[in-house]
Protein backbone atom coordinates (compact mmCIF):
# COMPACT_ATOMS: atom_id res chain seq x y z
CA UNK A 1 0.00 0.00 0.00
CA UNK A 2 2.72 2.33 1.15
CA UNK A 3 4.86 1.34 -1.84
CA UNK A 4 1.98 1.94 -4.27
CA UNK A 5 1.49 5.46 -3.01
CA UNK A 6 5.21 6.29 -3.35
CA UNK A 7 5.46 4.87 -6.86
CA UNK A 8 2.50 6.99 -7.95
CA UNK A 9 3.94 10.03 -6.25
CA UNK A 10 7.47 9.67 -7.65
CA UNK A 11 6.77 10.64 -11.29
CA UNK A 12 4.71 13.55 -9.99
CA UNK A 13 7.58 14.85 -7.87
CA UNK A 14 10.04 14.19 -10.70
CA UNK A 15 7.93 16.16 -13.20
CA UNK A 16 7.50 18.92 -10.64
CA UNK A 17 11.26 19.16 -10.07
CA UNK A 18 12.04 19.06 -13.80
CA UNK A 19 9.47 21.81 -14.36
CA UNK A 20 10.85 23.99 -11.58
CA UNK A 21 14.42 23.65 -12.85
CA UNK A 22 13.63 24.37 -16.50
CA UNK A 23 11.35 27.13 -15.20
CA UNK A 24 14.23 28.71 -13.30
CA UNK A 25 16.19 28.96 -16.57
CA UNK A 26 13.19 30.73 -18.15
CA UNK A 27 12.87 32.94 -15.06
CA UNK A 28 16.50 34.10 -15.36
CA UNK A 29 16.00 35.24 -18.97
CA UNK A 30 12.61 36.74 -18.08
CA UNK A 31 14.21 38.87 -15.35
CA UNK A 32 16.97 39.84 -17.82
CA UNK A 33 14.37 40.94 -20.38
CA UNK A 34 12.39 42.85 -17.75
CA UNK A 35 15.56 44.58 -16.44
CA UNK A 36 15.74 46.31 -19.82
CA UNK A 37 12.05 46.57 -20.67
CA UNK A 38 10.84 48.27 -17.50
CA UNK A 39 13.41 51.09 -17.19
CA UNK A 40 13.91 51.74 -20.94
CA UNK A 41 10.77 50.37 -22.69
CA UNK A 42 13.08 48.69 -25.20
CA UNK A 43 11.72 45.33 -26.37
CA UNK A 44 15.18 43.75 -26.31
CA UNK A 45 15.09 40.86 -28.81
CA UNK A 46 18.83 41.37 -29.30
CA UNK A 47 19.09 39.57 -25.94
CA UNK A 48 18.36 36.37 -27.89
CA UNK A 49 21.52 36.94 -29.95
CA UNK A 50 23.57 37.41 -26.77
CA UNK A 51 22.02 34.26 -25.30
CA UNK A 52 23.06 32.32 -28.41
CA UNK A 53 26.54 33.83 -28.43
CA UNK A 54 27.68 33.11 -24.84
CA UNK A 55 28.26 29.31 -25.06
CA UNK A 56 30.20 29.79 -28.31
CA UNK A 57 32.45 32.30 -26.56
CA UNK A 58 33.11 29.75 -23.81
CA UNK A 59 33.82 27.05 -26.40
CA UNK A 60 36.19 29.45 -28.17
CA UNK A 61 38.01 30.21 -24.92
CA UNK A 62 38.20 26.49 -24.08
CA UNK A 63 39.66 25.66 -27.49
CA UNK A 64 42.24 28.42 -27.04
CA UNK A 65 43.35 26.56 -23.94
CA UNK A 66 41.71 28.59 -21.16
CA UNK A 67 40.48 26.59 -18.15
CA UNK A 68 36.77 26.87 -17.18
CA UNK A 69 37.59 29.16 -14.26
CA UNK A 70 38.95 31.70 -16.76
CA UNK A 71 36.68 30.88 -19.71
CA UNK A 72 33.37 31.35 -17.89
CA UNK A 73 34.12 34.85 -16.54
CA UNK A 74 35.53 35.80 -19.95
CA UNK A 75 32.40 34.58 -21.77
CA UNK A 76 30.15 36.37 -19.27
CA UNK A 77 32.17 39.59 -19.56
CA UNK A 78 32.11 39.48 -23.36
CA UNK A 79 28.32 38.94 -23.32
CA UNK A 80 27.85 41.92 -21.02
CA UNK A 81 30.04 43.93 -23.38
CA UNK A 82 27.83 42.98 -26.37
CA UNK A 83 24.73 44.00 -24.39
CA UNK A 84 26.35 47.37 -23.60
CA UNK A 85 27.27 47.79 -27.26
CA UNK A 86 23.61 47.20 -28.24
CA UNK A 87 22.57 50.07 -25.99
CA UNK A 88 25.47 52.35 -26.77
CA UNK A 89 25.49 51.93 -30.56
CA UNK A 90 21.80 51.40 -31.19
CA UNK A 91 19.16 51.99 -28.53
CA UNK A 92 20.72 55.06 -26.89
CA UNK A 93 21.10 56.74 -30.29
CA UNK A 94 17.53 55.89 -31.28
CA UNK A 95 16.24 57.13 -27.93
CA UNK A 96 18.08 60.43 -28.41
CA UNK A 97 16.29 60.85 -31.75
CA UNK A 98 12.97 60.19 -30.03
CA UNK A 99 12.38 57.07 -32.11
CA UNK A 100 9.22 55.05 -31.58
CA UNK A 101 8.92 51.76 -29.70
CA UNK A 102 8.46 50.07 -33.07
CA UNK A 103 11.84 51.38 -34.26
CA UNK A 104 13.57 49.99 -31.13
CA UNK A 105 11.84 46.64 -31.63
CA UNK A 106 12.74 46.34 -35.31
CA UNK A 107 16.36 47.41 -34.85
CA UNK A 108 16.68 44.99 -31.96
CA UNK A 109 15.30 42.23 -34.18
CA UNK A 110 17.91 43.26 -36.75
CA UNK A 111 20.69 42.98 -34.15
CA UNK A 112 19.45 39.51 -33.23
CA UNK A 113 19.50 38.40 -36.87
CA UNK A 114 23.02 39.79 -37.44
CA UNK A 115 24.42 38.13 -34.27
CA UNK A 116 22.89 34.73 -35.06
CA UNK A 117 24.06 34.75 -38.67
CA UNK A 118 27.57 35.75 -37.56
CA UNK A 119 27.58 32.80 -35.14
CA UNK A 120 26.40 30.48 -37.93
CA UNK A 121 29.09 31.78 -40.30
CA UNK A 122 31.94 31.41 -37.77
CA UNK A 123 30.92 28.24 -35.91
CA UNK A 124 28.34 26.48 -38.15
CA UNK A 125 24.70 25.57 -37.68
CA UNK A 126 25.08 22.25 -35.92
CA UNK A 127 24.31 21.51 -32.27
CA UNK A 128 27.34 21.60 -29.99
CA UNK A 129 27.92 20.48 -26.44
CA UNK A 130 30.03 21.80 -23.60
CA UNK A 131 30.80 18.49 -21.92
CA UNK A 132 31.46 14.93 -23.01
CA UNK A 133 30.10 11.76 -21.45
CA UNK A 134 27.28 11.05 -19.04
CA UNK A 135 26.32 13.52 -16.35
CA UNK A 136 26.51 12.50 -12.70
CA UNK A 137 23.13 11.90 -11.04
CA UNK A 138 21.80 12.81 -7.62
CA UNK A 139 18.94 10.89 -5.97
CA UNK A 140 16.53 13.10 -4.17
CA UNK A 141 13.61 11.46 -2.27
CA UNK A 142 12.87 8.97 -5.02
CA UNK A 143 13.53 11.37 -7.93
CA UNK A 144 16.66 11.54 -10.04
CA UNK A 145 18.36 14.83 -10.91
CA UNK A 146 21.44 15.27 -13.04
CA UNK A 147 24.39 17.24 -11.76
CA UNK A 148 23.81 20.01 -14.29
CA UNK A 149 20.15 20.30 -13.25
CA UNK A 150 21.24 20.70 -9.62
CA UNK A 151 23.81 23.31 -10.64
CA UNK A 152 21.13 25.15 -12.62
CA UNK A 153 18.73 25.14 -9.64
CA UNK A 154 21.33 26.47 -7.20
CA UNK A 155 22.81 29.18 -9.45
CA UNK A 156 19.40 30.33 -10.70
CA UNK A 157 17.99 30.54 -7.16
CA UNK A 158 21.03 32.50 -5.97
CA UNK A 159 20.94 34.93 -8.91
CA UNK A 160 17.17 35.49 -8.79
CA UNK A 161 17.08 36.06 -5.03
CA UNK A 162 20.20 38.21 -5.33
CA UNK A 163 18.83 40.54 -7.99
CA UNK A 164 15.44 40.87 -6.29
CA UNK A 165 17.23 41.76 -3.05
CA UNK A 166 19.38 44.33 -4.90
CA UNK A 167 16.31 45.88 -6.51
CA UNK A 168 14.45 46.04 -3.21
CA UNK A 169 17.18 47.04 -0.77
CA UNK A 170 20.10 48.79 -2.50
CA UNK A 171 20.24 52.36 -3.73
CA UNK A 172 21.03 51.26 -7.31
CA UNK A 173 17.90 49.09 -7.19
CA UNK A 174 15.85 52.02 -5.97
CA UNK A 175 17.19 54.21 -8.78
CA UNK A 176 16.43 51.55 -11.42
CA UNK A 177 12.88 51.24 -10.10
CA UNK A 178 12.55 55.01 -10.17
CA UNK A 179 13.76 55.10 -13.78
CA UNK A 180 11.17 52.43 -14.61
CA UNK A 181 8.45 54.46 -12.94
CA UNK A 182 9.05 57.80 -14.62
CA UNK A 183 12.15 58.45 -16.74
CA UNK A 184 11.43 62.16 -17.20
CA UNK A 185 11.16 62.89 -13.50
CA UNK A 186 14.22 60.70 -12.89
CA UNK A 187 16.20 62.97 -15.22
CA UNK A 188 14.75 66.11 -13.63
CA UNK A 189 16.07 65.03 -10.24
CA UNK A 190 19.54 65.15 -11.74
CA UNK A 191 20.23 61.45 -12.19
CA UNK A 192 22.14 60.27 -15.24
CA UNK A 193 19.56 58.40 -17.31
CA UNK A 194 22.10 57.16 -19.88
CA UNK A 195 24.34 55.62 -17.22
CA UNK A 196 21.43 53.87 -15.56
CA UNK A 197 20.21 52.51 -18.88
CA UNK A 198 23.68 51.05 -19.40
CA UNK A 199 23.50 49.41 -15.97
CA UNK A 200 20.14 47.87 -16.91
CA UNK A 201 21.56 46.47 -20.17
CA UNK A 202 24.62 45.10 -18.35
CA UNK A 203 22.41 43.28 -15.83
CA UNK A 204 20.33 41.85 -18.66
CA UNK A 205 23.39 40.64 -20.57
CA UNK A 206 24.84 38.98 -17.47
CA UNK A 207 21.60 37.18 -16.57
CA UNK A 208 20.88 35.97 -20.08
CA UNK A 209 24.48 34.78 -20.42
CA UNK A 210 24.33 32.92 -17.09
CA UNK A 211 21.09 31.17 -18.04
CA UNK A 212 22.50 30.39 -21.46
CA UNK A 213 25.66 28.78 -20.07
CA UNK A 214 23.70 26.68 -17.57
CA UNK A 215 21.25 25.46 -20.22
CA UNK A 216 24.03 24.85 -22.74
CA UNK A 217 25.90 22.74 -20.17
CA UNK A 218 22.75 20.66 -19.60
CA UNK A 219 21.31 20.32 -23.11
CA UNK A 220 23.86 21.55 -25.67
CA UNK A 221 23.36 24.55 -27.94
CA UNK A 222 22.99 25.77 -31.52
CA UNK A 223 22.75 29.31 -32.97
CA UNK A 224 18.95 29.33 -32.75
CA UNK A 225 18.46 28.54 -29.04
CA UNK A 226 18.41 32.22 -28.11
CA UNK A 227 15.18 33.34 -29.75
CA UNK A 228 13.30 30.40 -28.29
CA UNK A 229 14.62 31.21 -24.82
CA UNK A 230 13.74 34.90 -25.11
CA UNK A 231 10.25 34.16 -26.46
CA UNK A 232 9.61 31.87 -23.50
CA UNK A 233 10.92 34.63 -21.26
CA UNK A 234 8.53 37.16 -22.76
CA UNK A 235 5.63 34.75 -22.22
CA UNK A 236 6.81 34.51 -18.59
CA UNK A 237 6.81 38.32 -18.39
CA UNK A 238 3.21 38.43 -19.65
CA UNK A 239 2.15 35.72 -17.18
CA UNK A 240 3.91 37.39 -14.27
CA UNK A 241 2.94 40.95 -15.08
CA UNK A 242 4.81 43.49 -17.12
CA UNK A 243 4.97 46.15 -14.42
CA UNK A 244 6.93 44.22 -11.83
CA UNK A 245 10.44 42.77 -11.50
CA UNK A 246 9.42 39.77 -9.34
CA UNK A 247 6.42 38.81 -11.50
CA UNK A 248 8.48 37.50 -14.47
CA UNK A 249 10.54 35.28 -12.15
CA UNK A 250 7.39 33.64 -10.80
CA UNK A 251 5.88 33.58 -14.31
CA UNK A 252 8.98 31.73 -15.55
CA UNK A 253 8.70 29.08 -12.83
CA UNK A 254 4.97 28.61 -13.56
CA UNK A 255 5.63 28.32 -17.30
CA UNK A 256 8.30 25.70 -16.61
CA UNK A 257 5.82 23.70 -14.52
CA UNK A 258 3.12 23.88 -17.22
CA UNK A 259 5.55 22.82 -19.97
CA UNK A 260 6.74 19.86 -17.90
CA UNK A 261 3.13 18.76 -17.43
CA UNK A 262 2.58 18.96 -21.21
CA UNK A 263 5.54 16.62 -21.77
CA UNK A 264 4.10 14.17 -19.25
CA UNK A 265 0.44 14.22 -20.30
CA UNK A 266 0.62 14.94 -24.05
CA UNK A 267 3.96 14.93 -25.81
CA UNK A 268 7.02 17.15 -26.02
CA UNK A 269 6.08 18.23 -29.54
CA UNK A 270 2.98 20.05 -28.29
CA UNK A 271 4.98 22.20 -25.83
CA UNK A 272 5.16 25.20 -28.18
CA UNK A 273 1.48 25.01 -29.10
CA UNK A 274 0.45 24.93 -25.42
CA UNK A 275 2.86 27.78 -24.61
CA UNK A 276 1.36 29.93 -27.39
CA UNK A 277 -2.11 29.00 -26.14
CA UNK A 278 -1.22 30.11 -22.59
CA UNK A 279 0.17 33.37 -24.00
CA UNK A 280 -2.99 33.98 -26.05
CA UNK A 281 -5.21 33.29 -23.03
CA UNK A 282 -3.27 35.70 -20.84
CA UNK A 283 -3.17 38.41 -23.52
CA UNK A 284 -6.93 38.15 -23.99
CA UNK A 285 -8.17 37.57 -20.45
CA UNK A 286 -5.50 39.00 -18.15
CA UNK A 287 -3.16 41.25 -20.18
CA UNK A 288 -1.71 42.82 -17.03
CA UNK A 289 -0.55 39.41 -15.79
CA UNK A 290 -0.83 37.77 -12.40
CA UNK A 291 1.01 40.48 -10.44
CA UNK A 292 0.60 43.53 -12.66
CA UNK A 293 -1.35 46.72 -12.17
CA UNK A 294 -4.42 47.05 -14.34
CA UNK A 295 -4.03 49.99 -16.72
CA UNK A 296 -6.04 51.35 -19.59
CA UNK A 297 -4.87 50.29 -23.05
CA UNK A 298 -4.31 53.91 -24.05
CA UNK A 299 -1.99 54.41 -21.08
CA UNK A 300 0.20 51.40 -21.84
CA UNK A 301 0.55 51.81 -25.56
Amino acid at each position, binding site marked *: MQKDATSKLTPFVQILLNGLISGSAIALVAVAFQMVYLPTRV*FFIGLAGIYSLTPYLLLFAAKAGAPLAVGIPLALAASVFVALACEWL*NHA*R*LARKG*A*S*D*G*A*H*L*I*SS*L*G*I*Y*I*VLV*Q*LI*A*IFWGNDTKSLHIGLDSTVHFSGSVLTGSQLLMACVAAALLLGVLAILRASSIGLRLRALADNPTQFALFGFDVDAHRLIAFAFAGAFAAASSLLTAYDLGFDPYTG*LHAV*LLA*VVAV*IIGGRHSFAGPAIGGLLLGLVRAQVVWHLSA*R*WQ*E*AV*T*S*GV*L*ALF*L*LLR*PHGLFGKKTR*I*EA*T*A
Partner: protein
Amino acid sequence: MNYLIHLLIYFDIYVIVALSLNLIVGYCGMLSLAHAAFYAVGGYAYALLALKLGCGFLPAIGIAAVICALLSLAVSLPAWRLKGDFFVLASLAVQALIFSLIYNWSDANAALGTWQNLTNGPFGIPGIPKAEIAGLRFARPTSFIWLATALAVACAFIVWRLKKSPWGRVLVSMREDELAARSLGKNTRLLKVQAIAIASGLVAFAGALYAAHVSYLDPSSASLDESILMLSMVIVGGVGNFRGPIIGALVLIALPELLRFAHLPDAIAANLRLGIYGLLLVLMMHFRPQGLAGEYRLS
Protein backbone atom coordinates in the same frame (compact mmCIF):
# COMPACT_ATOMS: atom_id res chain seq x y z
CA MET B 1 16.25 33.09 -69.39
CA ASN B 2 14.58 30.47 -67.20
CA TYR B 3 16.45 31.91 -64.23
CA LEU B 4 15.03 35.36 -64.94
CA ILE B 5 11.50 33.95 -65.26
CA HIS B 6 11.80 32.20 -61.90
CA LEU B 7 12.94 35.47 -60.36
CA LEU B 8 9.99 37.31 -61.87
CA ILE B 9 7.56 34.69 -60.54
CA TYR B 10 9.05 35.10 -57.07
CA PHE B 11 8.79 38.85 -57.46
CA ASP B 12 5.07 38.51 -58.34
CA ILE B 13 4.48 36.31 -55.30
CA TYR B 14 6.28 38.70 -52.96
CA VAL B 15 4.55 41.74 -54.40
CA ILE B 16 1.25 40.18 -53.27
CA VAL B 17 2.80 39.40 -49.88
CA ALA B 18 4.22 42.90 -49.39
CA LEU B 19 1.09 44.73 -50.57
CA SER B 20 -1.14 42.66 -48.29
CA LEU B 21 1.19 43.05 -45.31
CA ASN B 22 1.20 46.80 -46.01
CA LEU B 23 -2.54 46.81 -45.25
CA ILE B 24 -1.74 45.67 -41.69
CA VAL B 25 1.56 47.47 -41.10
CA GLY B 26 1.07 50.61 -43.15
CA TYR B 27 -2.65 51.25 -42.87
CA CYS B 28 -3.51 49.79 -39.44
CA GLY B 29 -0.11 50.73 -37.95
CA MET B 30 0.43 47.29 -36.42
CA LEU B 31 3.51 45.08 -36.88
CA SER B 32 2.46 41.50 -37.56
CA LEU B 33 4.81 38.51 -37.52
CA ALA B 34 2.00 36.07 -38.37
CA HIS B 35 1.90 36.80 -42.10
CA ALA B 36 4.05 33.83 -43.14
CA ALA B 37 1.69 31.55 -41.24
CA PHE B 38 -1.27 32.67 -43.38
CA TYR B 39 0.90 32.44 -46.48
CA ALA B 40 1.65 28.82 -45.60
CA VAL B 41 -1.97 28.03 -44.73
CA GLY B 42 -2.95 29.37 -48.16
CA GLY B 43 -0.35 27.15 -49.78
CA TYR B 44 -1.35 24.06 -47.81
CA ALA B 45 -5.06 24.70 -48.47
CA TYR B 46 -4.41 24.90 -52.22
CA ALA B 47 -2.14 21.84 -52.14
CA LEU B 48 -4.65 19.65 -50.29
CA LEU B 49 -7.67 20.85 -52.27
CA ALA B 50 -5.92 20.28 -55.59
CA LEU B 51 -4.22 17.04 -54.60
CA LYS B 52 -7.04 15.32 -52.69
CA LEU B 53 -10.26 16.80 -54.08
CA GLY B 54 -9.05 17.64 -57.58
CA CYS B 55 -10.17 21.28 -57.26
CA GLY B 56 -9.28 23.65 -60.10
CA PHE B 57 -6.89 26.56 -59.40
CA LEU B 58 -9.47 29.32 -59.04
CA PRO B 59 -11.95 27.52 -56.71
CA ALA B 60 -9.01 26.23 -54.65
CA ILE B 61 -7.42 29.65 -54.11
CA GLY B 62 -10.89 31.07 -53.36
CA ILE B 63 -11.44 28.53 -50.59
CA ALA B 64 -7.84 29.05 -49.36
CA ALA B 65 -8.47 32.81 -49.11
CA VAL B 66 -11.68 32.25 -47.12
CA ILE B 67 -9.90 29.87 -44.73
CA CYS B 68 -7.12 32.41 -44.17
CA ALA B 69 -9.58 35.27 -43.70
CA LEU B 70 -11.42 33.25 -41.03
CA LEU B 71 -8.16 32.20 -39.35
CA SER B 72 -7.04 35.83 -39.29
CA LEU B 73 -9.51 36.38 -36.43
CA ALA B 74 -6.78 34.84 -34.27
CA VAL B 75 -4.71 37.98 -34.99
CA SER B 76 -7.44 40.60 -35.24
CA LEU B 77 -9.25 39.77 -32.01
CA PRO B 78 -6.13 40.37 -29.86
CA ALA B 79 -5.68 43.61 -31.84
CA TRP B 80 -8.83 44.93 -30.14
CA ARG B 81 -7.01 45.15 -26.84
CA LEU B 82 -3.31 45.16 -27.65
CA LYS B 83 -1.10 47.77 -29.21
CA GLY B 84 2.57 48.17 -29.98
CA ASP B 85 5.03 45.59 -28.73
CA PHE B 86 2.38 43.37 -27.24
CA PHE B 87 0.45 43.07 -30.48
CA VAL B 88 3.71 41.98 -32.15
CA LEU B 89 3.96 39.33 -29.47
CA ALA B 90 0.37 38.15 -29.95
CA SER B 91 0.97 37.83 -33.70
CA LEU B 92 4.15 35.90 -32.94
CA ALA B 93 2.12 33.52 -30.77
CA VAL B 94 -0.30 32.95 -33.66
CA GLN B 95 2.66 32.29 -35.97
CA ALA B 96 4.15 29.80 -33.50
CA LEU B 97 0.79 28.09 -33.02
CA ILE B 98 0.09 27.68 -36.74
CA PHE B 99 3.67 26.59 -37.43
CA SER B 100 3.44 24.01 -34.68
CA LEU B 101 0.07 22.74 -36.02
CA ILE B 102 1.48 22.37 -39.54
CA TYR B 103 4.64 20.74 -38.19
CA ASN B 104 2.87 18.26 -35.92
CA TRP B 105 -0.37 17.36 -37.71
CA SER B 106 1.06 14.14 -39.06
CA ASP B 107 0.85 10.43 -38.45
CA ALA B 108 3.27 8.05 -40.12
CA ASN B 109 0.60 5.34 -40.35
CA ALA B 110 -2.09 7.39 -42.10
CA ALA B 111 -2.23 8.53 -45.73
CA LEU B 112 -1.39 12.17 -46.56
CA GLY B 113 -4.42 14.46 -46.50
CA THR B 114 -6.54 12.45 -44.05
CA TRP B 115 -7.60 13.93 -40.71
CA GLN B 116 -4.87 11.95 -38.94
CA ASN B 117 -2.15 13.17 -41.29
CA LEU B 118 -3.30 16.45 -42.76
CA THR B 119 0.04 18.15 -43.40
CA ASN B 120 2.58 15.29 -43.39
CA GLY B 121 4.51 17.20 -40.72
CA PRO B 122 8.17 18.04 -41.34
CA PHE B 123 8.28 15.94 -44.55
CA GLY B 124 5.94 18.34 -46.35
CA ILE B 125 3.62 17.74 -49.28
CA PRO B 126 5.29 16.63 -52.52
CA GLY B 127 3.76 16.47 -56.00
CA ILE B 128 1.37 19.41 -55.72
CA PRO B 129 -0.53 19.73 -59.04
CA LYS B 130 0.30 22.64 -61.33
CA ALA B 131 -2.29 25.37 -61.74
CA GLU B 132 -5.15 24.58 -64.12
CA ILE B 133 -7.91 26.98 -65.18
CA ALA B 134 -10.70 25.86 -67.57
CA GLY B 135 -8.57 23.16 -69.15
CA LEU B 136 -5.49 25.39 -69.50
CA ARG B 137 -2.48 24.01 -67.63
CA PHE B 138 0.16 26.45 -66.44
CA ALA B 139 2.80 23.79 -66.06
CA ARG B 140 5.88 25.48 -67.54
CA PRO B 141 7.46 28.57 -65.97
CA THR B 142 6.97 30.49 -69.23
CA SER B 143 3.19 30.07 -69.00
CA PHE B 144 2.99 30.19 -65.21
CA ILE B 145 4.53 33.65 -65.15
CA TRP B 146 1.46 35.04 -66.95
CA LEU B 147 -0.82 33.59 -64.29
CA ALA B 148 1.40 34.89 -61.46
CA THR B 149 1.61 38.35 -63.01
CA ALA B 150 -2.16 38.46 -63.62
CA LEU B 151 -2.83 37.52 -60.01
CA ALA B 152 -0.29 40.07 -58.70
CA VAL B 153 -1.86 42.81 -60.82
CA ALA B 154 -5.34 41.79 -59.63
CA CYS B 155 -4.22 41.94 -55.99
CA ALA B 156 -2.51 45.29 -56.57
CA PHE B 157 -5.74 46.59 -58.13
CA ILE B 158 -7.78 45.40 -55.13
CA VAL B 159 -5.38 47.09 -52.70
CA TRP B 160 -5.31 50.27 -54.79
CA ARG B 161 -9.13 50.48 -54.92
CA LEU B 162 -9.35 49.86 -51.17
CA LYS B 163 -6.79 52.59 -50.54
CA LYS B 164 -8.76 55.10 -52.62
CA SER B 165 -12.12 54.16 -51.10
CA PRO B 166 -13.75 55.89 -48.09
CA TRP B 167 -13.01 52.69 -46.18
CA GLY B 168 -9.30 53.18 -46.84
CA ARG B 169 -9.42 56.75 -45.58
CA VAL B 170 -11.10 55.67 -42.34
CA LEU B 171 -8.34 53.08 -41.98
CA VAL B 172 -5.67 55.79 -42.21
CA SER B 173 -7.54 57.97 -39.72
CA MET B 174 -7.61 55.02 -37.31
CA ARG B 175 -3.85 54.56 -37.71
CA GLU B 176 -3.22 58.23 -36.99
CA ASP B 177 -5.53 58.50 -33.97
CA GLU B 178 -7.69 55.58 -32.97
CA LEU B 179 -9.48 57.40 -30.16
CA ALA B 180 -10.45 60.27 -32.47
CA ALA B 181 -11.77 57.87 -35.09
CA ARG B 182 -13.83 56.11 -32.45
CA SER B 183 -15.18 59.36 -31.09
CA LEU B 184 -16.42 60.14 -34.62
CA GLY B 185 -18.48 56.96 -34.48
CA LYS B 186 -16.21 54.75 -36.55
CA ASN B 187 -16.18 51.12 -35.52
CA THR B 188 -12.42 50.62 -35.33
CA ARG B 189 -12.66 47.06 -34.05
CA LEU B 190 -14.65 45.96 -37.10
CA LEU B 191 -12.24 47.92 -39.28
CA LYS B 192 -9.21 46.04 -37.91
CA VAL B 193 -10.98 42.71 -38.37
CA GLN B 194 -11.83 43.60 -41.99
CA ALA B 195 -8.37 44.90 -42.89
CA ILE B 196 -6.54 41.93 -41.37
CA ALA B 197 -8.99 39.47 -42.96
CA ILE B 198 -8.48 41.04 -46.41
CA ALA B 199 -4.71 41.04 -45.98
CA SER B 200 -4.69 37.39 -44.87
CA GLY B 201 -7.00 36.40 -47.72
CA LEU B 202 -4.72 38.10 -50.25
CA VAL B 203 -1.58 36.47 -48.89
CA ALA B 204 -3.29 33.09 -49.30
CA PHE B 205 -3.16 33.76 -53.08
CA ALA B 206 0.60 34.23 -52.80
CA GLY B 207 0.96 31.00 -50.82
CA ALA B 208 -1.10 29.08 -53.39
CA LEU B 209 0.97 30.53 -56.26
CA TYR B 210 4.15 29.42 -54.51
CA ALA B 211 2.75 25.91 -53.90
CA ALA B 212 1.65 25.57 -57.53
CA HIS B 213 4.99 26.88 -58.82
CA VAL B 214 7.35 24.77 -56.69
CA SER B 215 5.03 21.70 -56.40
CA TYR B 216 6.36 21.08 -52.90
CA LEU B 217 5.51 22.64 -49.55
CA ASP B 218 7.00 22.09 -46.11
CA PRO B 219 6.50 23.81 -42.74
CA SER B 220 9.47 26.15 -43.30
CA SER B 221 7.21 28.43 -45.34
CA ALA B 222 5.34 29.20 -42.08
CA SER B 223 8.56 29.81 -40.15
CA LEU B 224 9.55 32.92 -38.26
CA ASP B 225 12.41 33.53 -40.72
CA GLU B 226 9.87 33.79 -43.53
CA SER B 227 7.77 36.22 -41.46
CA ILE B 228 10.86 38.31 -40.77
CA LEU B 229 11.68 38.39 -44.49
CA MET B 230 8.16 39.61 -45.27
CA LEU B 231 8.30 42.26 -42.56
CA SER B 232 11.75 43.36 -43.80
CA MET B 233 10.30 43.88 -47.27
CA VAL B 234 7.67 46.34 -46.13
CA ILE B 235 10.02 48.05 -43.68
CA VAL B 236 12.89 48.44 -46.13
CA GLY B 237 10.58 49.54 -48.93
CA GLY B 238 8.43 51.70 -46.72
CA VAL B 239 4.82 51.49 -45.68
CA GLY B 240 1.69 53.55 -45.96
CA ASN B 241 1.68 53.95 -49.71
CA PHE B 242 1.53 51.87 -52.85
CA ARG B 243 5.08 51.91 -54.23
CA GLY B 244 6.96 51.32 -50.94
CA PRO B 245 6.12 47.61 -50.52
CA ILE B 246 6.73 46.92 -54.23
CA ILE B 247 10.18 48.52 -54.03
CA GLY B 248 10.86 46.55 -50.83
CA ALA B 249 9.93 43.28 -52.53
CA LEU B 250 12.15 44.16 -55.49
CA VAL B 251 15.17 45.07 -53.32
CA LEU B 252 14.94 42.01 -51.08
CA ILE B 253 14.46 39.63 -54.01
CA ALA B 254 17.26 41.23 -56.06
CA LEU B 255 19.82 41.58 -53.25
CA PRO B 256 20.52 37.84 -52.69
CA GLU B 257 20.72 37.36 -56.45
CA LEU B 258 23.38 40.07 -56.70
CA LEU B 259 25.29 38.33 -53.92
CA ARG B 260 25.21 35.18 -56.02
CA PHE B 261 27.49 36.91 -58.50
CA ALA B 262 29.98 37.74 -55.76
CA HIS B 263 31.03 34.05 -55.75
CA LEU B 264 30.70 33.53 -52.03
CA PRO B 265 31.19 30.03 -50.64
CA ASP B 266 27.84 28.21 -50.61
CA ALA B 267 28.14 27.35 -46.93
CA ILE B 268 27.91 30.96 -45.80
CA ALA B 269 25.82 32.50 -48.60
CA ALA B 270 22.42 31.86 -46.94
CA ASN B 271 23.63 33.09 -43.55
CA LEU B 272 25.23 36.15 -45.08
CA ARG B 273 21.98 37.01 -46.89
CA LEU B 274 19.95 36.84 -43.68
CA GLY B 275 22.64 38.81 -41.87
CA ILE B 276 22.36 41.56 -44.47
CA TYR B 277 18.56 41.66 -43.98
CA GLY B 278 19.20 42.13 -40.26
CA LEU B 279 21.75 44.87 -40.84
CA LEU B 280 19.34 46.60 -43.26
CA LEU B 281 16.63 46.63 -40.57
CA VAL B 282 18.99 48.31 -38.08
CA LEU B 283 20.30 50.85 -40.59
CA MET B 284 16.79 51.68 -41.82
CA MET B 285 15.63 52.47 -38.30
CA HIS B 286 18.56 54.87 -37.83
CA PHE B 287 18.72 56.63 -41.15
CA ARG B 288 15.37 56.23 -42.88
CA PRO B 289 12.63 55.03 -40.54
CA GLN B 290 9.97 55.58 -43.19
CA GLY B 291 11.67 53.12 -45.56
CA LEU B 292 13.06 53.78 -49.04
CA ALA B 293 9.78 55.08 -50.45
CA GLY B 294 7.28 55.03 -47.61
CA GLU B 295 5.29 57.87 -46.17
CA TYR B 296 4.47 56.62 -42.70
CA ARG B 297 6.85 56.21 -39.74
CA LEU B 298 6.07 53.25 -37.55
CA SER B 299 4.90 54.19 -34.09
